[in-house]
């Protein structure tokens, strides 16, 4: 179990690899694919059946998992598990400024 939630006011750190693992799990689950069939860099739009509705559903599940909200403007232009993981990491990592 991964933790991205706020505990005692501090966001526990999650590594990029951990985020990638969760995102991959959700993406392949939504598309009904084997977990090892989607590499981090795979362009999701190249997968048959990965329509825009499914992409939004994936994002919704990712949001629920990490208890975060991804803004529309953050998810425009994303095309791979790697891209999604970067957006999630950006929201999970407290802004140093």
């Amino acid at each position: 179990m991964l933790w991205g939630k706020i505990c005692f006011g501090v966001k526990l750190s999650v590594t990029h690899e951990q985020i990638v693992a969760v995102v991959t799990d959700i993406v392949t689950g939504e598309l009904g694919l084997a977990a090892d069939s989607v590499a981090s860099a795979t362009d999701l739009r190249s997968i048959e059946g990965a329509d825009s509705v499914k992409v939004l559903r994936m994002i919704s599940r990712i949001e629920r998992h990490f208890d975060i909200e991804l803004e529309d403007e953050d998810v425009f232009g994303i095309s791979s598990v790697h891209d999604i993981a970067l957006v999630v990491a950006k929201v999970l990592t407290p802004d140093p400024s």
Partner: protein
Amino acid sequence: MVTGTLHDALDRVAAHGRDTRVDFPSEPASITLGELADSTRVMARSLAAAGIGPGSRVGIFSQNAPEFLQALFAITRTGAAACPLPLPTAAWDLAGHAHRLARIVSVAGIRDVVVSSRFRGLASRFDGAVGNVAFVCAGDLLAAAPASGRLPLVDAAEMAIVQFTSGSTAAPKGVRLTHANTLAGIEAISEGIALGRDGDGGGSWLPLFHDMGLFATLSAILRNVPMTVWSPASFVKDPARWLRQFLASGATISPAPNFGYDQLVAAMPPLEVAGLDMRHWRVAFNGAEPVALASVERFLEHFAPAGFAPEAMFPVYGMAEATLAVTFPPLGRPPVSVWVDRDLLANAGRVWQVPPGHPHARAVVAVGRPVRGVDLRLSGPDAGRLPVDDQQVGEIEICGDPVTSGYLLAEGTDDDTFTADGWLRTGDLGFRLDGDVFVTGRTKEMIIVHGANFYPEDVEGIARDIPGVFKRRCVAVAGRTHDSDRDGGRDGRGKGADGSDGDGAEVITLLAETSLDDPAARDRLAGDLRAQITGTLGLSDLAVHLVPPSTLPRTSSGKFQRLAIREQSWKSPL
């Protein structure tokens, strides 16, 4: 005859409905009609001071938020026309979207775009790719307005809105709507559903840049009816949560394309339906894409325990060219449908009723009668375009006060939309039975997915340049799967399109020649084609068939034989 302008109508309604609200729960934000009227006068002075006035066309680039509506009315107050611009969706290639916007900006002659504060950052990422336009923030226009300044008197015959929902990405067509058109269209919608009854409220998750989302919202506003506008993402991400919010908002009227009703059925578990109260939902517009009887029946059955009234399901036919509404069913009538022979309909344009279980039976849902102010006729395909009789399919032609007088077009494009006697050819096919209009297909090569229009030529334009495609040879065809395909394979993908006679999902099928033999390389090419095309166009899905070199049939002059390819593409899955 309706007179005046959109903003006059807003001022009139705001005078007695100052506190009526338009809510945007996904923002969250809210604006009253009084605030909308006042703020748009201020914003208009800013725009006028920047040189915007009669003859200008100004883009709106905003999510569903008060700023969208403020920009719209502020622009029309200056005498300029408002051009709602499409927003990208998740996983949509930004460069591709910028290119699409650039075509629209060029065709419409847009120099200024009002952008919401939330989209200002995204607009800056376009970095000149949209053309020579200035993005101005709605908030800045409000803050920096001159204290005084005269606004022009705007004539009802001036262009108010240019709606870019028709036409391909390569050759966009902007539907020109005057103030008189839009007010007549809103009048037609309002009368058709008796909008403004006690307790009425509107609710929509459609994008405001989409004609159905825009005119549904404007109808509520100009009839002093409270309106709630969600973001499209909030619906798509969690339809069940949206439905609960919609029902709790007290709204009685909502528009959605057919697929939205499928989503609600799939998202709401049967055990939870009885806990809902849907009795107050009195008009559920089902439009913007073909209405499927199976979807309608599933929805009525699924939500019957919650008290959803069958007569609330309201299958309609409309288009931006008519300021939305063309035909509505009589208010209070449950959906009506007929079963006709699919083959006679497709091959002979003949309407022949058959029992539902007949092997060639195809269901068509009635979309009602022409709304107030719209005349409708059906014309035959022959050169004479003679009127067709009641048992025959014809092209639907319309005219009337809400109907556009023409398009803004790319230079060098001809407008063949109007007949010699001034009727607009819709490109849709249909028939009439017992006073009802039934829409059966299209003469134009276009598909509608989730309420948005897509054209094969745009698909080909992208596919040709992708490495691995043999000598740029590819053809895209539009069509619909048979319902039987959908039942078997859920969406019939891989079976291809069958022309206009199916009644299942709408698909674009791309056939591309390639000399690649290696299965992995072929998979990669198919994946590249799908990724590039869906990413650039925002098309939700695409069927790709790879064929050997020099197999797509061509005419002696080297042109692809589209019709032959279209037939072949579904008869022999490749």
